[in-house]
């Protein structure tokens, strides 16, 4: 399953936000990859996510494969739309 996401929090995908993605991934069996400008990285690696370098406004594509992917996608969407729980 694929979805498009936009980074809307002020600080972008910095360590704390990337950490929350990794944290989320741990709760599911499905595998997550994130893609920006044809660069695709492992969504369970905080360092890989950081290297994507996503400031506010970046559009990225998430691919989730696995049995519990529908649920994980919803949670991932929430995470992005809640700006990772950060004040905007």
């Amino acid at each position: 399953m694929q979805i498009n996401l936009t980074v809307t929090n002020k600080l972008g995908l910095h360590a704390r936000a990337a950490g929350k993605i990794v944290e989320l991934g741990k709760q599911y069996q499905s595998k997550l990859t994130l893609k920006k400008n044809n660069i695709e990285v492992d969504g369970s690696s905080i360092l890989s996510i950081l290297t994507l370098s996503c400031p506010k406004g970046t559009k990225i594509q998430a691919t989730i494969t696995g049995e519990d992917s529908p649920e994980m996608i919803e949670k991932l969407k929430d995470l992005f739309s809640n700006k990772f729980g950060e004040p905007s």
Partner: protein
Amino acid sequence: MTKRQNKNQLKLTGIAVSSGIAIGKVRVIERTKARITYQYLINNDQIKQNVQRFKDALNTTENQLITLKNHMPDIIKEHGFIIDSHLMILKDSMLTESTINRILDEKIGAEWALKQSLEEIRQIFNQIEDEYISSRINDVENVTERILWNLSGETQESLTNIKDPVIIAAHDLSPADTTEINISKAIAFITDMGGRTSHSAIMAQSLQIPVVVGLESATKQLKDGDLLIVNGNTGEIIVNPDNNTFIYYQEKKKEQEEYKSTITKSSHLPAITLDGHKITVRANIEFKEEVVAIRNFTPEGIGLYRTEYLYLWNNKLPSEEELFEDYRKVTETISPAIINIRTLDLGADKISSNLRMPKEKNPALGLRAIRLCLKEQQIFKNQLRAIIRASNYGRLQIIFPMISGIQEILDIKDIITQITEELTSKKITFDSNIKYGIMIEVPSAVIMAEDLAKHVDFFSIGTNDLIQYALAIDRENKNVAYMYQPFHPAILRMIHHVVKVAKDARIGVSLCGEMCGDPLCIPILLGLGLKEFSMHAMAIPLIKKIIRSTSLKEATTDFDNILKLDTAKEIRLYILNRMKHLLPELQEKGYLDH
């Protein structure tokens, strides 16, 4: 005893940050680079063994991080997420899997393989344009260091676990480390990094133990258990002192402690010179909690409240309400005495990760202090509004840092007008007669002093920066640090000029750099006409004592003589001799050692 004689005495000099003498065994905190062995693996057993060693080290590291997180003192609880991200890095395939693959494929030892993984990550991070994200390589380095130390079989301990009265030596200490030391039993600490005014140095002073920073490579030369003398007055470290030195410092330490307690007892006496001139001595503070702690030193108010703390400590920018509460409490507590609140002086050596500031080649000359505030006006306005609102609760004055000319003052005044009009329209009360002052710390402000005086209520001379900018030296640069000379004739003439201008213009003038905490500087500063000082609270008892032993008339004559001298060295010698005459006990007790 015999052990001590066997080793050679070694002297190292750094920058004295917090006064006093400590004698004790050193505990080297391995925040420094772990040693890496480069080893080729010659058989499968060795390969298996290295993979296992690496996995064990990962487990140990994980346990350490979890323990650290669970034992975080309340004051730094908010930093918990840093540990969480370290735990994630620890489990990150870019670091761990790649290291294991290297051990297997390249047949190299675990340390070497890990180091290569780090370098690979570093290269990728170097290409990231976003400065904030690329600087996260520091976290990867931190985690790697921890693993490397665990691979070496040594354990890296939390500073809070130090229960013995030891001297802590470290390559560098973060503000969090400094807090941990606070709850340990350390009797002194020394670091390779840092300058007199670096953030952890300033924090360290509140610990009231001797601290020397900027020792460059001291920790590499020290071994756990080495006997050490830390002279927080002069910045000197003596490793494995010979018997004579050991005995000398033991005596000085005892004498200084006794002297300190005597002069602290007399600290409540006003600072009046021998010929009857009243001098005002205030304290510099960094956090609101200090307001209570400094009472023992009886300052006549707060001459400088540095406000960076709230911006550096939290992982988000403080809200106006948080700032207001902080400023209100400090102002109320110190009332009816004066408090000078300095607006944000971020930049240079104090960087907040909340402000995504671009990396600058020369931060001391870059976007810092008032420049940053006038660029990021929302941040500035929030702070100013909070300060102005707090003025309702005592005698609050505001100081703006790094002013270089009139334009900045005009810009600031516009903002102040906006804020006060807004507050008035919302019927929020504040002191409508707040006094506004500026730091004189940029050489251009010295030259423009007469004009600047027309626009402000007072000057506060910041010598830490003034010396660095006037003498064109980077005080963090060890190669030129010797040129950081408060006694340089140019510096004394600049201060003299500013004081004269302020007096002619009938506006207030005070000095708030480290300089006025130096016993030798006081007679000179009195002699050139200064009557108001603000310094680290711990220095107050001694400085007051010196003021009470000085005649202003003589100090003025001395200053006339000093103006005729050509070099910092001559001036220092002149005043040293005067001081020996003025207060012989200072020399006897080793305060004038250098």
